[in-house]
């Protein structure tokens, strides 16, 4: 009650202070706006460190696979030990990805193989940079492609009618990642708990008053929006969150971050783009096979993604989860029971509108002459084709040429 009083009288004071009506509208009433219509949501998950595509989505039907990986290959489906979960008679999921299998069966999960960046780089940094900027081999691109998408959609005429929510793009990371860097506002938070003013109630009000009075400049404007956003999140009461439909998130940081993305979605704060990343994929040594190091990473990854999907339930009709990794790993295992940096990799697309139940991408084969530079899985799908299709078909971006300059997506993959 008191806050309302504050706002009303605060607004009155601002009028008499001669601030512009639009500034006033933004600051005083923004939090009362509810974004009623549920829009489309994209959740991007980055596996940083180059996840081993060949053991994630296993080409058990390719005769060369087992020759290249004598001790770390995932056994053929039906083998007596833990083995690949068959998808289509040729590909199978790593057994640790079992939590995702039901979504394949329901036609919601679409793995994409031999996909990635056309850049020849095998540097984690460069490859992540290119995947996030959306401009392979061009370093000077200042912004990320997801932010370019937000900015293009954000310069809207309807902004006068509908104040955009501050939670339109949220990254569950400490810093804004490259993919979301750019002119459109993005909130970075390591947890929903962190999105609060760490002061007593009366100090919070004093701080709010400091930002709602004085000059009508960018700092005051952003400050007023900050307090609106804090209130908006509090009204949504994410602290009382209980996952639904029996979803069980892993206790890992990644699992907890995905749970908080679900919280924000269900709080209807207007989330349109969510981002999280997870490391531990750079398996040069002792990567393991059906069990071991990589299996443990995949198990956490799959459990978290499956929990998110389960938890969102019917909402998955409007949600697409897109996973990516900067490149794949060498086809042949190395001398340390691991794999070194490679070229093409694999992605997952998961959602109610996804035409799943099919592995996308042309398979280039693993025979020596079929490998990229004689050693790595060759690339048959440019990652930008996938991103552009998601932006177009799911988010409704009309023209993707500004998202991916100098790139023509080519034939439609038909993912959505």
């Amino acid at each position, binding site marked *: 009650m008191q806050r309302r009083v504050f706002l009303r009288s605060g607004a009155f004071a601002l009028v008499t202070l001669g601030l512009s009506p639009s500034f006033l509208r933004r600051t005083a009433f923004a939090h009362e706006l509810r974004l009623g219509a549920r829009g489309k949501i994209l959740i991007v998950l980055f596996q940083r460190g180059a996840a081993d595509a060949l053991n994630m989505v296993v080409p058990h039907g390719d005769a060369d696979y087992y020759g290249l990986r004598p001790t770390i290959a995932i056994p053929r489906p039906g083998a007596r030990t833990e083995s690949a979960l068959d998808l289509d008679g040729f590909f199978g999921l790593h057994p640790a990805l079992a939590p995702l299998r039901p979504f394949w069966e329901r036609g919601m999960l679409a793995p994409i193989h031999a996909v990635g960046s056309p850049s020849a780089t095998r540097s984690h940094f460069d490859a992540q940079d290119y995947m996030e*900027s959306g401009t392979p081999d061009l370093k000077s691109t200042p912004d990320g492609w997801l932010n370019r998408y937000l900015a293009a959609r954000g310069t809207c005429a309807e902004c006068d009618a509908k104040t955009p929510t501050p939670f339109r793009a949220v990254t569950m990371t400490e810093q804004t990642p490259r993919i979301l860097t750019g002119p459109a506002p*993005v909130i*970075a938070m390591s947890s929903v708990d962190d999105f609060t*003013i760490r*002061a007593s109630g009366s100090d919070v009000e004093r701080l709010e008053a400091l930002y*709602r009075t004085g*000059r009508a400049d960018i700092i005051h404007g952003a400050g007023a929006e900050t307090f609106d956003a804090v209130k908006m999140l509090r009204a949504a009461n994410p602290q009382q969150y209980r996952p639904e439909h029996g979803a069980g998130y892993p206790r890992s940081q990644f699992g907890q971050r995905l749970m908080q993305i679900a919280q924000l979605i269900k709080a209807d704060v207007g989330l349109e783009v969510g981002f999280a990343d997870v490391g531990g994929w750079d398996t040069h040594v002792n990567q393991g096979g059906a069990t071991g190091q990589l299996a443990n990473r995949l198990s956490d990854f799959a459990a978290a993604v499956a929990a998110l999907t389960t938890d969102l339930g019917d909402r998955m009709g409007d949600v697409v989860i897109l996973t990516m990794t900067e490149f794949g790993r060498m086809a042949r295992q190395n001398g340390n029971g691991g794999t070194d940096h490679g070229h093409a990799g694999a992605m997952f697309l998961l959602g109610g509108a996804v035409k799943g139940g099919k592995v996308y991408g042309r398979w280039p084969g693993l025979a020596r002459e079929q490998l990229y530079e004689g050693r790595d899985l060759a690339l048959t799908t440019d990652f930008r084709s996938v991103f552009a299709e998601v932006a177009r078909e799911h988010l409704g971006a009309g023209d993707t040429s500004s998202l991916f300059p100098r790139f023509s997506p080519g034939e439609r993959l038909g993912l959505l």
Partner: protein
Amino acid sequence: MLSLRTVPVVAAVVGLACAPTTARDIARPSEPAAAVEAREQTADQQVRHVLNRLAFGARPGDAERVRGMGVDQWIAMQLEPSRIRDTVGERLAAGLPTLAMSSPDLLTRYPPPQVVRAQMRRADMSAADSAEVRRSAQESRRVLAEMQIAKVARAVASERQLEEVMVDFWENHFTVFAGKGPERYFIAAYEREAIRPHALGKFRDLLGAVAKSPAMLFYLDNWQSAVEEGRPTADAQRRVARRRGVRPAPRAPAQSAVRNPPYRRRGLNENYARELLELHTLGVDGGYTQQDIVNVARAFTGWTLEQPRRSGGFVFRPAMHDAGEKTVLGQRLGAGRGIEDGEQVLDIVASHPSTARFIATKLARRFVNDDPPASLVDRAAATFLRTSGDIREVVRTIVTSEEFFSSAAYRAKVKSPFELVVSAMRAMNAALDMTPRSAQVVARLGQPLFLHQAPNGWPERGDAWINTGAILNRINFGLALAGGAIPGARPDRWPRFAELDRAERPAQVDGVIAGFLGGEASVETRKILEAGVNPLARDCGTPSDCGTTAPEPAVMDDGMAPVRGRGRDPLSRPQNLDGLREIIGLALGAPEFQRR
């Protein structure tokens, strides 16, 4: 507390609100008598202005010192850092041993975990091996952490403030990303040997030092840029020359490495060439073509590293160099040359009028305004050309100009997270923080030091730093600092703390505004700090409605579950401040403190 004061305060604010100009009115202290050259800014403003622009904000006593010496005198002194006695370097060296080490020594002493793993060379690592890899990974993080600690500490404590501002400026202009492969082993030498010695020197010297630095050669991949198949190399030219009995030009060292080159031959890499023109010198509209980029890249083929993964230094390899003829920005580079090609390109771009304008604009943006006046940029660019790129003279032109001391420039810049944290610590009279804590806070506010990925560096404009999440974190930072969460910067370090701690609230507010907001706060800010309560909330039925009597919860919870405080992140810790600490926390979180 203070509930009874609410009504008169509100009356005052509402009354003020009726006057049309009130919103921009600033409460100013009286002018001192000190004679400073007549400028648009008042004498007091000039003092604060130079401390906010040529330094990272005022420490207690700084304003008096600058006023006593005279603003112009102080500027002249800061432009000659070598004449200023400063011991911060020695003080840091004692606690941060990596700062003085060479890159190869760093690599030997703090090897990256993959090297440690590779040395084990086993199919199955034991638990002890894994522990060793983990330990070495932790140790190797010191290399970057100590640079981050030192960067904050120098900015806080160095007497050579302008030098630190310029080092920060050039490190951002010539940015590298410490997270790329072994890059972190190169950055200590980069700052020590390429950036700092030339921060106020000749631009050409700076550019050359950067071009040959392992940090830049590795970051922008020039080390692996090689002549395209089928073109003549400098090595081949030499053999031809020898057959004809011509004495070959002296060779670069490391002949053995030439026979067995450690690079993967992939041909030309244009990354460095492109950024050299676009970001380091001419600027994106500087008048170059894609063909210029290709030819600049060809000129720099062979500028490489001796064993980059082992942190070897710069070497020119004739076998990698494209010795064909090239034209760069209309100037011909003859065939059959070697390292001179790159040197000549640096000469051309360092003296180019577009470079003069680009650097002048960027410096004026840093020191004066996000959109600096064209008149000033013209003069600064003219100085650049007249003095053959003497950075000190370009900076002097800018910081002694009428435009610099204009009202429009005053408090016009938004602080970057680094500037925010450092200026707060300086205002607090902080001791050197030899822990990574304050650098971590800078990262938390969105500016992890030495970790900007893209080659364009951190934004120089204010709007890029200000958004919803940023303000929240900035406010929490102010609260955390006032709550004593940053080592060495507890509020009782502030010299006036003891004296004001028991004073009446108005005196405390005056003291805090003088100490932390440069004596300037809007009328509203002063009222809000003084009242200790929201002056706009007029309709409280009972005192408790105004939040004035009930004991405050530890965090703003309003029925929400208590927020768990996490030990490592000071910004996540709830701060229940009162008295003078509260006023300091509010002032640091206020809009006024976000500007410089």
